[in-house]
């Protein structure tokens, strides 16, 4: 295989990791507070607020119901406004984040609702306010579940970043589409697929190991 191809694949790996990690981090910057807000304003939350919950709930559901590929195209003008161009890996992060944030918010909300109400009650009885309960009880007790959610989200975003290759997003997905689909170079496509599987496995294994390591509920 010629050197150019190897170089291209290495660059592709870099771009894929960049897009995945970039969107997962930016996704959590938006999604984590959103998820906390969903939990807090929810029916059994710390400060139930029906109107706020309904609005957030609605936005999340709308975005999540749009297929990613369509979202990608719909957002082209927005992406161009933010990044300055609508192709390349940095530009791909924009729709990835918008797609991921509501998903992350849901995952976070569900992790937080697993926390035992009794522990929250105990914290209240000690004089903890809502902010302290979020930082000192909810995020601590839900840690394992949050990390598992993070791992799953990262895996999904890896797949989505590859999908964005179809519209010139860069990364391994882009290579697979350009060589496998347009030029019928099946070998290059296979290599990228194997690499994607490998990266996915690594994310999954490391993620699960780390979250299990920080779980103290076991003996």
């Amino acid at each position, binding site marked *: 295989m010629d050197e150019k191809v190897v170089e291209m694949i290495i660059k592709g790996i870099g771009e894929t990791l960049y897009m995945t990690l970039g969107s997962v981090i930016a996704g959590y910057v938006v999604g984590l507070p959103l998820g906390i807000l969903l939990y807090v304003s929810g029916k059994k939350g710390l400060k139930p607020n029906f109107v706020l919950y309904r609005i957030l709930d609605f936005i999340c559901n709308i975005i999540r119901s749009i297929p990613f590929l369509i979202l990608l195209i719909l957002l082209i003008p927005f992406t161009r406004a933010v990044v300055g161009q609508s192709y390349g890996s940095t530009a791909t992060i924009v729709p990835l984040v918008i797609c991921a944030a509501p998903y992350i918010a849901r995952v976070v909300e569900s992790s937080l609702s697993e926390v*035992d109400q*009794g*522990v929250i*009650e*105990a*914290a*209240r*009885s*000690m*004089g*903890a*306010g809502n902010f*302290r309960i979020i930082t*000192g*009880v909810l995020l*601590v*007790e839900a*840690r*394992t579940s949050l990390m598992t959610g993070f791992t799953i989200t990262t895996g999904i975003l890896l797949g989505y970043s590859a999908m964005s290759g179809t519209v010139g997003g860069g990364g391994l997905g882009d290579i697979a589409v350009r060589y496998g689909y347009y030029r019928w170079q099946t070998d290059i496509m296979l290599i990228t697929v194997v690499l994607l599987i490998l990266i996915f496995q690594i994310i999954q294994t490391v993620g699960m190991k780390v979250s299990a390591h*920080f*779980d*103290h*509920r*076991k*003996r």
Partner: protein
Amino acid sequence: MSEIEIINLTKRFEIEGHSVVALDGVSLSIEKGDIFGIIGMSGAGKSTLVRSINYLEKPTEGRVLIDGVEMGGLTEAELRKKRSKIGMIFQNFNLLEQKNVTDNVCFPLEIAGIKKKEARKRAKELLGLVKLGDKEKAYPAQLSGGQKQRVAIARALATDPQILLCDEATSALDPQTSASILELIREINRKLGITVVIITHQMSVVTDVCRNVAIIDSGRLVETGPVEAIFANPGSDAAKELLAGKKEGYIPVKTLDAGRRIRIVFRENSAYEPVIANMILKAGVPVNILKADTRNIGGKAVGEMLLGLPEDEAKQEEIISGLKEAGLTVTEVSENG
């Protein structure tokens, strides 16, 4: 002024259009340094009542005063500060599962804004007090139920509270462990002078540690007074039912076959005399002993006996007056009692 003053407390829960009255005009005073029991059947409103004391539950009507301060008049921030002076423990311990024992005990101190180093020092002291000095680094999952409750007690005491609220604190524990936790609570009350409020549905818990008791039934306070007095002479149906100990696995009174039944209570002084034997000799008729038990109430041995009397009404009266003369408390046990 009592330390805890509950005045005409009513709590209604609105669920899907209709309202549930959990507490109905409850008034209660708890003195400083007391160990006060609140007993009632499941759903009677005990938890709601105890949660109203630290205002985790805001009453629909009525007032709660702690040391003369009206809880309903406090701002959110003042209320949080007040709560840190009222420790609370629970049936399910409610420890932070992801934090170790020391960090659990430090948590209320962290909330109170105490420096980490100081908090750790205090946690160490408290873990010594509850006899868990060797478990500092353990996680709750590695502890037994009794040990978890000890951690919860240490945690509740961290901020030097004046009051300790215990909501069914021993209900999830076996009798032996339960006894050791109650002993610890008694010790804390004695050593630190903390007022303790114990919620339970088990009469044995009340008779073991409490000095005063309130009985609630369907959200109403039906009886209150010193444990000894209520044990000897229960006035309410709820008290009689709880004393009959149905929840503790004794045979319910009504299945024991006899015409007229009485319940007699022995005090320490009378327990040494052969009262029953004398009575039988005197009356010349046999009586049926349906149940007999002794309990330790506030450090004093108190015996309890359930007798089935003979048919003859004159003899019945003779027996009852004879027992009363011997200094025993005699109460009739009704069919459903």
